[in-house]
């Protein structure tokens, strides 16, 4: 993959004036964000601030009422075709893993390449083996999700998303459901992915991870982007009171 400096081309993902309501609840307010190839964004904020909703709009798990979302030059609309095209290029990792419990780990990884990319079984197996090795659970390939620890399950879920060779990875609180001793193995996997140049948008409260890999940290509250800065600046000199309050609370635990 050729290395391209951020800003040297059209944004991979662009959100312009995005607004979302759940009934009368205003979940996202005038969100403007562009993400370039290779960029790593960390989204943080108190619960209910809209950060998960925001990334779920990017692969159309949620629809929006106003504004525009462009992924890889495709403007998301109601047509199934665009949604399919976008989802093919955008991988997602969930807080609760969402592995398919009735399939083995490798079958979990092979399903989408076979069904969506029309890959042969042998090719799908090769690619699944490759990515399971990459997240260091190649030896668990033939087990069922319930037989794995939480950390292993989440790494399997990362491998499953990678098997589609996406251009962007969305992480929705990937370590929040994990026991503390398993957080590190998942973060290490994500750091490895970041080093390989993957474009990533991560909703997480892991501030150590944010410091280490983020190009930008975005702080959200009440559906709005409150502050956006490089990690050093974000942690050392937060500008807004709400950011300061949030950091005070979250860093007190670490």
């Amino acid at each position: 993959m050729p290395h391209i400096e951020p800003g040297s081309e059209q944004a991979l993902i662009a959100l312009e004036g995005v607004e979302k309501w759940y009934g009368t609840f205003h979940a996202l307010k005038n969100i403007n964000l562009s993400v370039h190839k290779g960029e790593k964004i960390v989204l943080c904020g108190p619960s209910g601030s809209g950060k998960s909703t925001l990334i779920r709009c990017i692969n159309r798990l949620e629809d929006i009422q106003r504004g525009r979302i462009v992924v890889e030059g495709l403007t998301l609309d109601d047509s199934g075709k665009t949604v399919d095209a976008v989802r093919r290029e955008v991988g997602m990792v969930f807080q609760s893993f969402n592995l398919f419990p009735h399939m083995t780990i490798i079958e979990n990884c092979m399903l989408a390449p076979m069904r969506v990319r029309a890959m042969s079984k042998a090719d799908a197996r090769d690619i699944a083996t490759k990515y399971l090795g990459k997240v260091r659970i190649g030896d668990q390939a033939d087990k069922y999700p319930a037989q794995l620890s939480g950390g292993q399950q989440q790494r399997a879920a990362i491998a499953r998303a990678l098997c589609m060779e996406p251009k962007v990875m969305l992480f929705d609180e990937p370590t929040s459901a994990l026991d503390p001793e398993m957080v590190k193995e998942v973060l290490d996997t994500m750091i490895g992915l970041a080093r390989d140049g993957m474009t990533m948008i991560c909703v997480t409260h892991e501030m150590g991870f944010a410091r280490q890999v983020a190009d930008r940290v975005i702080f959200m509250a009440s559906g709005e982007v409150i502050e956006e800065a490089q990690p050093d600046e974000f942690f050392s000199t937060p500008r807004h009171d709400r950011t300061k309050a949030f950091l005070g609370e979250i860093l007190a635990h670490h």
Partner: protein
Amino acid sequence: MASIGVNELLFLLQGLKWTIALAAIGFAGGGLFGLGVALSRVSTHAVLWRAGAAYIAVFQGTPLLMQLFVVYYGIGLLGVNVDAWIAVAIAFTLHASAFLGEIWRGGIQSVPKGQTEAGKALGLHYVSRMKDVILPQALKISLPATIGFLVQLVKGTSLAAIVGFVELSRAGQIVSNQTFRPLMVFAIIGAIYFALCWPLSLWGASMERRLAKSAR
């Protein structure tokens, strides 16, 4: 008073054959259409959803006996001469699909939403999401209730006697009329139904235990 001999027993077994055939037809037809009914009930398409709800309301809310009557004599009234087999197959399919559709709807809805979301996020289309991800889990959850319904269906086939089928119950009635030993005959009939349904019930119960265990 005649005795119950080998011929009478063979006649009853002949009836049992039809009972099993009727249950199999009802279950196969009901399974096929029931899947359609279940999918319409979980669809986001308002028209489909309403149609599924109406279908279930009508066929769960009226007696099977009446449905058999309506289909068998109703089609005849339209001037179409239908074979009793076809009429019964249609009636049992309608009946079973309404019940199985509702059972499986519940199964589909009890699969966590995250499974659908993971499928969507991977780019899987509706058919693959259903066939590969949701239905295998939903059917497993629904298996005990499905088997329970199958037991009901086996016993419900006795109603087909109304349109002239000599299935197990009707065969028993005939033998009883010939031999004047109703108690004996219906004891045998009861035992045969029991031998058919009890293992199914046991199987359903053991499935339920296994599911409860694996859910932990």
